[in-house]
């Protein structure tokens, strides 16, 4: 079994346990182990990439330096953590002057970006391969009209992230198609959900995330697939007063169902599981 060193991050231990659980379960089903790294800490979230404050970059540099002890690559899941860690690894390689200061401060060990950071989507696309996933999808989700939602941190800035076209990405759609879904096209796929404004300005979330959900809905989506716990939180928050909200699920959960995993193994609650099941053209076959 191919093993990848894996960084979960804080959200995946609290609000987004289901993301963590479902990703690991999918990994198992695909013959890919996600091995949690030793001694990880908070990535520092949005503060980290302030160009003029090196202090905030001490944390992610420590994470990457520790991960390097175990492997030369690190897989992330949360789009926010991915953005921070990937950009930190690139900055560490490129900006020697800054890195020297950070290394002086961190003391633990000298780190100059000797690690590659991958998002799980990249691992599935580039190493596992969507073709392989297609053959391993025991219960393809034929005709499930899903909206892939990327948000901003997964793709931008493109110069550093290099994951997909920042304006017209296809990676999530390609994954969804490989497991039989029918991803819909809608214009808000790469708009910002509002990020941390859910704390100081929830009305902004209402507008930004509300527009995204509305756009997906009016283009025929029955659910939205995300790769970031904060996006999921905001998209759900914007529908607080909606009696029949659009379900928001992680890509690992949809993938898991296609791979024949159970509701429990994917951390899906009843309403989400039901939402997926009820929209399938052919019923899910229980695999013994």
């Amino acid at each position: 079994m191919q093993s990848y060193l894996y960084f979960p991050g804080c959200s995946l231990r609290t609000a987004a346990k289901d993301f963590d659980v479902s990703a690991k379960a999918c990994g198992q089903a695909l013959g890919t182990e996600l091995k949690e790294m030793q001694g990880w800490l908070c990535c520092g979230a949005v503060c980290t990439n302030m160009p003029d404050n090196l202090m905030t970059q001490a944390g992610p540099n420590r994470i990457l330096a520790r991960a390097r002890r175990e492997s030369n690559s690190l897989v992330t899941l949360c789009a926010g953590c991915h953005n921070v860690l990937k950009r930190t690894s690139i900055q560490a390689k490129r900006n020697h002057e800054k890195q020297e200061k950070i290394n002086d401060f961190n003391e633990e060990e000298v780190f100059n970006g000797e690690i590659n950071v991958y998002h799980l989507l990249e691992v599935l696309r580039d190493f596992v391969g969507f073709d392989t996933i297609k053959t391993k999808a025991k219960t393809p989700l034929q005709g499930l009209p899903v909206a892939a939602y990327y948000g901003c941190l997964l793709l931008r800035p493109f110069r550093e992230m290099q994951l997909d076209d920042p304006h017209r990405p296809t990676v999530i759609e390609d994954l969804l198609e490989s497991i039989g879904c029918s991803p819909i096209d809608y214009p808000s796929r790469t708009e910002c959900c509002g990020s941390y404004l859910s704390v100081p300005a929830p009305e902004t979330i209402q507008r930004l995330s509300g527009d995204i959900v509305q756009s997906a809905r009016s283009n025929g989506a029955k659910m939205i697939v995300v790769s970031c716990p904060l996006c999921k939180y905001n998209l759900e928050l914007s529908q607080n007063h909606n009696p029949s909200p659009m379900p928001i699920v992680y890509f690992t959960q949809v993938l898991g169902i296609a791979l024949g995993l159970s509701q429990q193994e994917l951390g899906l609650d009843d309403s989400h599981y039901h939402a997926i099941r009820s929209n399938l053209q052919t019923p899910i076959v229980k695999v013994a």
Partner: protein
Amino acid sequence: MKRVGVFVCHCGLNIAGTVNVKELVEQAGKGSDIVVAADHKYLCSEPGQALVRDSIKQQRLDAIVVAACSPAMHEVTFKNLAQSSGMNRHQCEIANIREQCSWVHEDSITATAKANLIVRQAVEKVKLNESLDPISVPVTRRVIVVGGGIAGIRAALDIASSGYQVYLVEKTGTIGGRMAQLSETFPTLDCSTCILGPLMVEVYRHPNIKLLRLAQIEEVKGFIGNFKVRVRQEAAFVDEKQCNSCGECTKVCPVEIPNEFDSGLTWRKAIYVPFAQAVPPAYVLDVKNCLGLLPLACGECKKACDKLGMSCINLDAQPQIHELEVGAIVLATGFQLYDATQLSEYGYGIYPNVMTSLEFERMLSASGPTSGIPIRPSDGRVPRDVVFIQCAGQREPETALPYCSKICCMYTAKHAMLFHHKVPDGQAYVFYMDIRAGGKGYEEFVKRCQEEKGLLYLRGRVAKVYEENGKLMVNGVDTLSGKTVQIKADLVVLAVGMIPTLGSHELGSISKASMDANGFFAEAHPKLRPLESPTAGIFLAGAGQAPKDIPETVAQASGAASKALQLMSSPTLEREPTVAHVTEEFCSGCRICVPSCPYEAISVNPKTEVAEVSAALCEGCGTCAASCPSGALTLRNMTDAQMLAMISAVER
């Protein structure tokens, strides 16, 4: 021992403001080898030059050092002065105490000390200078012009009309270039074809111009005044002298492909005439798209032509190779548009109603696909709301082009105005970063557009274009009101930037004309030699050198032509004699120098096994001299002995 004079220029306060000239003259005069040391407020002025001239004559000087500005500025001035005063021009050296001293230092004492050393070095060098005579090479008095757009046309006409033979090499089936595609030209709105057409005809009829269409440069050998150029001319398969443009062949051709002239908005056949005013006025067979030249494969065009009793079409025609000898090369290869599909935020190539400015231009043209009426490609309806996005993919160093294409502010204003004239109840929106309307009558033209009814200028950029319910939704920002805006548009026009024509990079390496960071041809000096490539004998015209509009292109083309004519004006050419020289006794024939020469000026004589320098090709860079392990190669007037003397002068 040589009798040396030192002359120090104040350059007003440019030098004297920092360097203590009085002290410098005093110091210089102390040298045992210095016969005279003097200064003048402006040495380059006539009284200043008179001082030098009189000193040379009265003091019987053998050599002079002029301590003044950069040699790039006045070396020629003072060498001419030395020559006209009866001295060999190579007995004059410039000590640059302005750019390399007074302008970059603040402290007078150290600056003066440094100026003194610079002068001492020049004195040591000039003491060992040889008197040299210029090298004379013959000039082939013919010119090749590459590119048949307005730049190439203008340059070719100017040279040909001065009585010299011109080969005009054009890679497509007709001359005319981009300008032929335009409808009206800013700021006067005169019809582009109407002003270009007569020039195209003039080229065709000119006795001194040989037009080679469907032709490209394959090889350039030789040097300024003596180039040997190999041109490959593809077969047109239609005899341009016989063809009377009846068009019967086109009617029967079964192939349809997008028409480049209409930016792909219409279709053309595989045998076609590029456009009505094409020069030469003859059909051409596009062999890449033809079903096959064998009569068995198709041959319908030939049958149709033969049926009329003509025999214009020869399917057995072969490409021709022309070996041309010319004295100068004018590169006028022009531009093409940046690939708009790269700008995925605007959806070009995905939404049919998002088009490039050149496609919109074709629609506005009376000879265009819609006879001048703008329409939506998706449904053929006349658009009411049109959004123009300026700087599309430009001034974006991180993701697209870093530079400004200079003409887009103007043509977008023109497009918006023409659209409004054709659709009076329509509304045009122009998103801009800032308006760059530098040019005669340009600002006034843009002002007129901005004040026109039904035309709204919004300062800001567009983040995204997407389609919803048959309309294009344009999400942008108006930075003047500080608000985001969304416009429901029928049509979006992208002002994409200019990039060098495909193939100009290859042409650059073939002809050794260097390119800049953006792939345009580099000029020898951005201000003082904008018409010349750093490689002598190659001149630049038009948008192949940098984005520019028609007036500027025409001006540069005439300028490049006059540079070429300057070369043609004499049967021989004088080159600087400060070139590399082989001391045959020292040369072991090791060949290290051969690949080190960037100008391919060095070869090894097979009989004597000794390196030889072609003085005509040598640019005097000195690379070979530095690489030679036995000291056989020396650069005239920059020998090892001179270098060591100059270094010792600083050490002291």
